[in-house]
């Protein structure tokens, strides 16, 4: 039984990758460690439950990864996706430490596998968890609990007692009541605020009512809010979030990876008024994948429809929900709740503009439209072979960028830049230091793993001082 009256060396708030890496590290240094996780046991581990791979630098073929992914290349990729919005010192250090992350995770019982089918291009840069993120979490929990880390589920931290730059205690709410838990060091690893619709509404207004949250409903940013209220230095644009196109039928929260749609490039995308609004093929996966959430968020009603014809059937990873099908475009429009004449006109104009070419999804091909105000620059083929299929789309939020600034020992920085005495941060809650914008597949877990270990070391070192 967890004894909340006891004083712990290290208190870790959260329940995902970052928390476990910190907890195991601190425990291996000999600290008493308590993990407070807001979610019930099944949902433990926040968005880590939904992950499948981790990006790591390596100098040659490593484990199940092919080739080399040198630090410099990782850094170049990061600079490119963030447009330079990254702390170079922290980022380079993280990339360097990522090199030993896979073997460290392996030593904690995490199994890896060859890259998944349909994830071409990541076999060199990313290591895939055997069985996915929940399998990875289960292994880390087994190891952590086996080492004597204590963990409490259904235990939301609702407040922190902070004295200046020093953490004193955390107020936690459990089924049996509210408790103040004292510890010498604190590691805050409680994720972002993507599941907090009220908070999202501050920036997005009522549009946020139409957002779907891809991951856990428990990442409500409570710890981040408390830290901000206690005068820590923020990092990352609070108005920004990573968003992709999801099927409307996805559950409001926690639908995970399966509700994303890869159908977009194989046809056209129209809004509620049956109008196209963006070049469906401006760029290749994965960049394309990540822009559509924000594009749809900007459309009326935050809804859009991806439409293709019979010729494109079976070309993309089949989504879980069935396509809405009809033999004619006007019939399809009725089923989608759109204006039949308007959709027919959009499709006719599009078909008219398609120029012949050689269809090839492995490269930016020469199938494109000509004469449209809004072109489709690649993979354009006429929508003329029935039955026609459609998927209704909404924006799906993956994570938010706002976080707490840290130094290279994982210490939370107070407003003005001075480090906190005993507060550390890891994972999504500090990811904005490294990923100021954009996204690189698998970097969320790299940031969480490395920063978790760094924070665990720091928290342990402080506890022994």
């Amino acid at each position, binding site marked *: 039984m967890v004894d909340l009256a006891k004083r712990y060396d290290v208190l870790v708030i959260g329940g995902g990758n970052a928390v476990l890496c910190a907890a195991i590290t601190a425990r291996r240094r000999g600290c008493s460690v308590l993990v407070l996780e807001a979610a019930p046991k099944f949902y433990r581990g926040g968005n880590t439950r939904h992950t499948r791979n981790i990006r790591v630098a390596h100098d040659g073929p490593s484990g199940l990864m092919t080739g080399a992914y040198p630090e410099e290349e990782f850094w170049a990729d990061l600079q490119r996706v963030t447009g330079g919005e990254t702390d170079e010192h922290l980022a380079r250090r993280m990339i360097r430490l990522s090199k030993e992350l896979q073997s460290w995770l392996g030593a904690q019982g995490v199994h890896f596998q060859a890259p998944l089918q349909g994830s071409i291009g990541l076999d060199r840069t990313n290591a895939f968890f055997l069985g996915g993120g929940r*399998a990875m979490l289960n292994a880390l929990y087994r190891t952590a609990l086996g080492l004597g880390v204590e963990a409490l589920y259904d235990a939301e931290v609702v407040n922190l007692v902070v004295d200046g730059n020093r953490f004193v205690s955390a107020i936690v709410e459990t089924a049996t009541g509210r408790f103040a838990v004292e510890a010498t060091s604190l590691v805050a690893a409680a994720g972002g605020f993507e599941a907090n619709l009220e908070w999202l509404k501050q920036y997005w207004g009522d549009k946020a009512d139409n957002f779907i949250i891809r991951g856990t409903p428990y990442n409500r940013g409570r710890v981040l809010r408390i830290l901000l209220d206690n005068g820590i230095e923020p990092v990352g644009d609070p108005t920004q979030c990573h968003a992709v196109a999801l099927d409307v039928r996805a559950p409001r929260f926690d639908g995970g990876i399966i509700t994303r749609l890869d159908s977009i490039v194989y046809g056209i995308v129209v809004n509620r008024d049956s109008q196209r609004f963006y070049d469906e093929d401006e760029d290749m996966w994965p960049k394309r994948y990540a822009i559509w959430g924000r594009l749809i968020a900007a459309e009326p009603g935050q809804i859009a429809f991806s439409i293709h014809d019979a010729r494109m059937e079976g070309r993309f990873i089949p989504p879980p929900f069935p396509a809405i099908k009809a033999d004619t475009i006007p019939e399809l429009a009725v089923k989608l709740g759109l204006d039949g004449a308007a959709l027919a006109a959009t499709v006719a104009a599009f078909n008219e503009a398609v120029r012949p070419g050689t269809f090839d999804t492995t490269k930016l091909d020469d199938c494109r439209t000509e004469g449209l105000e809004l072109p489709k620059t690649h993979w354009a083929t006429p929508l003329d072979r029935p039955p026609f299929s459609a998927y209704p789309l909404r924006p799906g939020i993956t994570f938010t960028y706002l976080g707490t600034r840290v130094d290279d020992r994982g210490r939370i920085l107070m407003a003005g830049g001075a480090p906190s005495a005993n507060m550390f941060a890891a994972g999504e809650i500090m990811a904005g230091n490294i990923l100021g914008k954009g996204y690189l597949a698998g970097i969320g877990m790299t940031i969480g793993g490395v920063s978790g270990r760094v924070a665990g070391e720091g928290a342990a070192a402080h506890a022994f001082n």
Partner: protein
Amino acid sequence: MRSIDELSPPPAFPLWAKSHSTAALDEADRVATICNSCRYCEGLCAVFPAMETRTIFAAGDLNYLANLCHGCGACYDDCQFSPPHEFAVNVPKTFETLRAESYQAYAWPRAFAPAFERNGLVISLVAAASVAVFVLGFVGLGDPAVLFTTQTGAGAFYRLMPHEAMVALFGAAFLYAIIAIAMGLRSFWRDSGGSGVDIAASLKALRDAGTLRYLDGGGAGCDISGKATPDRRRLYHHFTSYGFLLCLASTSVATLYHYLLGREAPYPWYDLPVLLGTAGGVGLIIGPVGLLVAKWDRNPALRDAKRLGMDVAFLVMLLLTSLTGLLLLGLRATPAMGILLALHLGVVFSLFVTMPYGKFVHGLYRFAALLRFAGESRTRGS
């Protein structure tokens, strides 16, 4: 806050398609469709790579996938969508249910298919009846002076039941089992779209079946979460299946002895049929007991309670076969031999005739599925 259903536009798009003839097939289709868009479990076993080569799942495909699944349980613990998640993905249980349904669907002749409904009861009744008939037959037809006295030396058994009668009865039962199972397998193979197989695929399937390659969660272990004891079902299954094969070998050698060498049972303890039979019998005790215990220890969420009777009945039948066989061996030089022989033969006879209508068929459907998979992987070039 408004819920998502109230938002515009409101058409109710269908969630999961229902197109199959049974609820088990519909659920398997739903789960396979979800897995196919997730693929996180791809490295765990053969099932997920096999799913990924399909976008539409016909009944035959689903029966194939269900029989390819070894029920290790790893993908349940690994799944972010397992219950209580609203997607409620439970691959091991869904496929366990469908597997049992497929045994029934392919049973031959059709009239006996209902035997799978209450399989535990059916098997118990058949076994009890068979034992009763043998005991009564021995008592009624045999010489009581022989039945209750010590019989030793070559041909001791046949003084209780003539060898020809034994061969005719058991040969017929065995032949019937083989034909009935073969007919079922044929329907399964056709339905799953199986075509010709080559030697390499057959060797691979034999290896995968013989080592139970896919009963280990892709190397990370099976259903391991929250359990104090490790999952040793693979070991116990080896004891069981190899024990069974050894017993079969023992009987075959004995038959050869009888017809080729003119040597009659019982044989001395150091002779091949006895050595094989004893080793097999011991395996058939350790294995089924281990598997029964594992069944109790298994995460109840993974279990289809309705199918428990079938599994237990088969394991108990194997256990009874080996127990009566070993008892017979141990006590064959005592007056108890006669009744024990009747008991043993009764159990073995019922084991044979119920083979096509019980858990035994899982091994053959599993093997056929592995064969199918081996062929498929080759044409896919992986």
